[in-house]
């Protein structure tokens, strides 16, 4: 398996590990270096259907200085490095395509500074978003980006992660104020700072957010926080048709109603969620909504407006929940939807897609995609952060039946091309990894050359997470 070349055909083959490097790293880290099969296997893939590529060794640094030492050593020995957070990525970002060293940042989990009055926080890369929010309890503040999995802040910055609240609070792009990064040759740089805005020098923060570990190792991040709203309520509403649900979303967004979350689950997805989380909702296209406001009154006003819009779009069942426990139950069910879908077909793996289109084309894109999928024998669930025009399909396939894998690939490819033709993008939030490099080429023309040159400038020996993002 380790010698397998990825299907996208990018890997120039496996790198030969130098025993001297292992000795150097062991001298530096002691038992925080592992070459055991189990640990390497754990660092071989993330949550993805893509095949595993274990690294030759995994290191567990505890400080930025240690990361620098590790990177310098790997750089001297021309050894590939793959930064690893929580291993929750969906596009194979952490697979060690060419072997080398996996740099696991999970022990760098200190919260270095919380400034409630400035509403920002500096954390080490291995802090997870749930850990951070737990730490912030009692401050009246929260960190808003909430991908389903409990990813690390470093990993989320590296993949420019998003989540259900992006429609109101933005993605990692809006949330990261500054980063500490170890470059491929061991140089340490800081991008940005704590000022809310800066026009000083080039905005390298933007370059490293979303660079997927291909330009350097993010070791610390300063991120912005938001005030917890005074009043919150949640609602679910089911529709006769997906179009009805999508049109409700479009109108809600266009009217500028400041919904905090607006998520679409289709009938297949609702069936899965009902079974897995015992939700008892109708098996029909459903919107999950959350409203944040300065008072109960302002929240109630938002709910009323959405209710009216929904009524014009064939809404069936409209339930709302102000009780915190009921709300938590709803959103837990939403966040567990990936596992709920997997449970529909034991033994199957999930191939997750991630397109994003301008919101005006959303209804059309979903309708055409559903029509295309109707002929398929696969179980396909749809879920989306539709407020941003971003939606996912989950194809359940038997990994041992090549015909099913091919079918899913075919459907996905057609959907991506459909999204691109509508002015959309091949990945709204999961990133490129190596699963989507071919689509990146379809999407960007000359700009891809610029990306490649930036990669070559900052990582001339192609050691940082090689084989991902752009072909060198």
């Amino acid at each position: 398996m380790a010698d397998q070349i990825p299907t996208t055909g990018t890997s120039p083959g496996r790198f030969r590990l130098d025993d001297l490097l292992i000795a150097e790293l062991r001298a530096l880290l002691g038992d925080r270096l592992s070459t055991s099969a189990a640990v390497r296997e754990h660092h071989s893939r993330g949550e993805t259907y893509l095949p595993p590529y274990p690294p030759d060794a995994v290191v567990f640094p505890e400080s930025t200085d240690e990361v620098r030492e590790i990177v310098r050593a790997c750089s001297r020995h021309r050894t590939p490095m793959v930064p690893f957070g929580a291993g929750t990525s969906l596009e194979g970002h952490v697979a060690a395509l060419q072997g080398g060293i996996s740099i696991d940042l999970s022990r760098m989990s200190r919260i270095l500074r919380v400034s409630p009055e400035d509403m920002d926080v500096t954390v080490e890369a291995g802090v997870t978003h749930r850990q951070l929010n737990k730490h912030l309890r009692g401050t009246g503040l929260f960190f808003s980006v909430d991908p389903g999995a409990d990813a690390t802040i470093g990993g989320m910055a590296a993949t420019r992660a998003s989540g259900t609240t992006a429609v109101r609070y933005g993605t990692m792009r809006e949330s990261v104020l500054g980063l500490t990064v170890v470059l491929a040759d061991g140089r340490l740089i800081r991008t940005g700072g704590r000022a809310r805005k800066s026009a000083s020098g080039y905005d390298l923060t933007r370059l490293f957010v979303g660079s997927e570990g291909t330009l350097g190792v993010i070791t610390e991040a300063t991120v912005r926080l938001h005030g917890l709203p005074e009043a919150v309520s949640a609602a679910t509403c089911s529709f006769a048709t997906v179009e009805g649900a999508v049109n409700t979303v479009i109108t809600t967004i266009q009217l500028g109603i400041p919904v905090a979350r607006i998520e679409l689950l289709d009938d297949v997805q609702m069936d899965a969620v009902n079974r897995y989380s015992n939700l008892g909702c109708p098996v029909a296209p459903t919107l999950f909504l959350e409203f944040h406001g300065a008072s109960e009154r302002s929240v109630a006003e938002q709910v009323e407006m959405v209710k009216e819009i929904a009524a014009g779009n064939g809404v069936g069942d409209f339930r709302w929940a102000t009780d915190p426990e009921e709300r938590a139950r709803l959103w837990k069910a939403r966040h567990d939807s990936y596992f709920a879908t997997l449970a529909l077909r034991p033994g199957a793996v999930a191939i997750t897609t991630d397109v994003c289109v301008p919101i005006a084309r959303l209804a059309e894109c979903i309708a055409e995609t559903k029509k295309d999928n109707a002929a398929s024998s696969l179980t396909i669930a749809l879920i989306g952060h539709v407020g941003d025009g971003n939606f996912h399909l989950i194809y359940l396939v038997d990994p041992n039946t090549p015909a099913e894998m091919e079918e899913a690939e075919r459907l996905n490819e057609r959907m991506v091309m459909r999204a691109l033709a509508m002015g959309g993008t091949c990945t709204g939030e999961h990133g490129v990894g190596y699963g989507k490099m071919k689509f990146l080429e379809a999407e960007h023309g000359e700009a891809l050359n610029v990306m490649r040159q930036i990669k070559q400038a900052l990582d001339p020996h192609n050691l940082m997470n090689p084989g991902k993002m752009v072909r060198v």
Partner: protein
Amino acid sequence: MDRAALIRRLQAIVGEPYVLHRPDDLTVYEQDALMVARHKPDLVVLPDTTQQVSDVVKAAREAGLPIVARGAGTGLAGGAIPERGGVVLAMTRMTRLLDLDLASRIAVVEPGMVNAELTAMLAAHGLFYAPDPGSQVASTIGGNVANNSGGPHCLAYGVTGNNVVGLEVVLADGTVTWLGGRAMDAPGYDLTGIMVGSEGTFGIVTKVVVRLLARREAVRTLLAIYDRMDVACEAVSAVIGAGIVPEALEILDGITMRAVNQTLHAGFPEDAEAALLIEVEGLSESVPVLIERIEVICRAQGARRIQTAATAEERLNLWKGRKQAYGALGKLGRRTMMLDVCVPRSRLPEIMRRVLEAGRRWNVGVANFFHAGDGNLHPTPFFDFDDTSPEYARVIGLTEDIMRACVELGGTITGEHGIGLEKREYLGWMFNDADIAAMKQVKQVFDPADALNPDKVFPTGRSVHGAPRGKALAVPRA
């Protein structure tokens, strides 16, 4: 290629009237709103299409001339000054609205479109473009992109970088490419993100895809008068600390209020040290609730008087004082020079104390009106001598003290005006050699021959104001 041949080639590309080469015609392009430096370009070209921009770039490169893109020339950091001469690409003819996608709330505009004109065109559709720099009635979207411009309403809606989703760019070799697109968050490296704020040193922007926002149902504006500046600064943190992020949160100091009173008869109290101007937008039910809460907080934080605007006209009146503040300061001295620095918000009381101290130390009057919610200050020294006078050294001393204090407090030497040539020698106060080296590597990728707006952003050893004195004592970054 000799000059006459180059002029002919450029005239063939853009048409004869759009190549300026006579000294008188070039004078207009020798400076921008940084009043202390000027340099004539060799030629000015006014292109009309992306293809023309590309052809001009190729022609200038073949002639070995640098290229400096220019919008309305309202930049305050000298970013559009062609210090080495060369060809100025004036983008002011490229002002078209190419596409308005109401359903997706996206517009595609040419870079010469004036900021305020875009918003005016959108008004009928209930939409607006959020960044609203003080120069918005003149400055162009392309110039805003180059400098990552902000404005009062960026507190809630973000700066230019948060509101641009895609760019068409002519690269240094004349290649035309798109960065980003129409959907948020194009995959791959965020080249749109890094192009924004690159001050014309990476490429020439020829189309901009901007995000549009829906006008909120209701707007309410409040003015709170404070006897003391430090108390007003504390109130800023109290409002935001209560979980309220107003659409705008501005401070005017006593000097500014008195100057505005003289020109506009704005009716500000003559003896107050600070006024807080706060605006909230939202649904009609929630806005009154918010403004009430803000009022309660401001009172609890010691406001002397609070005034709320009930009508659109009253609202505009409250804003008039803020929007025309810089102009009004002209009353105070023959020269004014607006600075632009930014600190974490909680450091506002301290930085204001240090700004006033610096003014006393250098014996220069300083007025202050600023985006307090973002921690973005605009200390504005006013004085009666020229930049050629020996006395001008006091203004430089003041400027450096303020920048040094900001860096020490975890802030930045420019929040929204850019580095240009004004602040290039100070970049090292914020970033160390490794940071700057990484930036230079990125510049090399885009412009290996250093042909696009050369000598901007990075230290050159030649300051417009003479060499910087000393280093920041500490650099408590991140």
